[in-house]
Each structure stands twice: as structure tokens, then as C-alpha cells.
């Protein structure tokens, strides 16, 4: 089955990004596909490559990037939400790309389930 995910919050302040990541990982381990994760609202902050958590903490920016690389997950940051919040190519982490909201609707159309994580 194909799952698309929508992530509405940045890392750390809310658990949303953690939950979405662990859901995606579990789905892939079960043999499902996660062709796209769309980052909207404060979710765009997941793509900030400057993020540097303490050594004993998880680094969600890198975890998402690795998942994308290993399992061909398309990580899309909403351009309008990102512009407002200062998430642009200058600081975009590896594995992410910036595109329009149409990519969210397209993911809703092209997958079996859209699952949303946020506050």
C-alpha cells in the first residue's frame, strides 16, 4: 500500500515529526511504500540543515534525510509556508526539495492513504 504523510510541526517542540518518522519507518518495514512526505505549516522547519541537537538527542533533519535516501521518499517542503518562515534553498538539508502545495494534493490522489501529524 502507498502512504503519503503530512507533517505540520517542526522538530523538538512537538512530537509530530517524531511520530511521523517512526510511522514512516514502520510502514516501510512492513513492506509498504512511502512515496512522499509533505512538510507544511511549521513542519517546514524539519528541513533546516543548521539544526544541531545535543549529542545524546535524535536529529530529525538527518533521520528524514537518511530515510529519503534509503527508501526513495520524496521530502517536499511547501514553498509558501517555507518562504514565510525562512526555510529556503540556502539552508535546505539534503534529501528535501521545495515545491508547491499542489504536491500535497497530488500525494493525496496518488496514494492510498494520507496521514497527518501535527499539533
Amino acid at each position, binding site marked *: 500500500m502507498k502512504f503519503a504523510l503530512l507533517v505540520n510541526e517542526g522538530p523538538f517542540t512537538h512530537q509530530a515529526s517524531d511520530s511521523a518518522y517512526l510511522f514512516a519507518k514502520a510502514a516501510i518495514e512492513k513492506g509498504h511504500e512511502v512515496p512522499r512526505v509533505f512538510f507544511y*505549516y511549521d513542519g517546514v522547519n524539519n528541513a533546516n540543515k543548521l539544526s544541531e541537537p545535543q549529542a545524546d538527542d535524535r536529529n530529525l533533519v538527518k533521520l528524514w534525510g537518511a530515510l529519503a535516501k534509503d527508501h526513495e521518499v520524496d521530502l517536499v517542503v511547501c514553498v509558501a509556508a517555507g518562504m514565510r518562515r525562512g526555510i529556503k534553498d540556502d539552508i535546505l538539508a539534503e534529501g528535501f526539495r521545495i*515545491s508547491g502545495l*499542489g504536491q500535497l*494534493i497530488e500525494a493525496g*490522489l496518488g496514494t492510498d492513504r*494520507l496521514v497527518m501529524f501535527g499539533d
Partner: protein
Amino acid sequence: MAFEFDTEGVKKTFTFLNRKAPYGTIYALEVLETVLITAAFEQHANIVFIDDGVYQIKKGQDTKAVNMKNFLPTYGIIEMEKDDADEDEDIDMVWRIIVEKESMEARGLTEDDFKVGVEVLSSAELAEVLDQSDVVIGG
């Protein structure tokens, strides 16, 4: 790795569930941006207002003194999209703008308080609509 989905001829019902008050958070505005995109894909849409989301379409919003963008005019655009879809037989797209009666009444509002024309449904009726959605997006 711009992934290509095969969405040719796919038709789904998107429900946009608005549960948050306007201005305290940006969810109202950014959900609206998503709703407008859905029109470009010619998809069915339920734009649903429940809980504090019913306040989003209350008439008379004036945001000058809080220095924020007024979201209200955008709902007018959504109503126009809906009317276009209703009237143009070439557009295979059904849009519904729905307010939950229980949420509205708990907040002391009536249909006359809203900026756009809405269908008022009971919780039980709305539960059926939600249950028949293919994709639910909200904030």
C-alpha cells in the same frame, strides 16, 4: 527525486476540517491555501467548520489593530469556486461548505453571522459526510 504520481482520471473527495479559531494560529489561512489548490485539480471538497473553526467565517473581522492579514476575504473566493462548480456543467466537482450545528450553537452563532453561505448539519449528519471522505486535511 521529483516523484511522479499517476493521478490521471483519479477523483477523490477531500475534506478540509477547520477546528481552530482564526488569528490565534495561522491554521485557518494555510488550510485555505490548500483548499484553493484543490480546485485546480478539479476534486470534490468538503470545507467543514467545527469547534472553534466556526469562528473563522464570522462576519465583521477587522485585523488592522493586530497588524495581521484578514483571512475573511479568502472565504469569498472559496464560495465563488463552489458556485462556479455548481453552475458549470463541464466541471465535475462538488464542493460543500458545511458548519456543524452543535458547534455553532454552543458559540452563540447563527447562520446570519457567517460571511459565506453554509449548509448547517447536525453532528450525526456530519459524521456520515466525514466517513465518506477519501482524504482528510485539517488544522
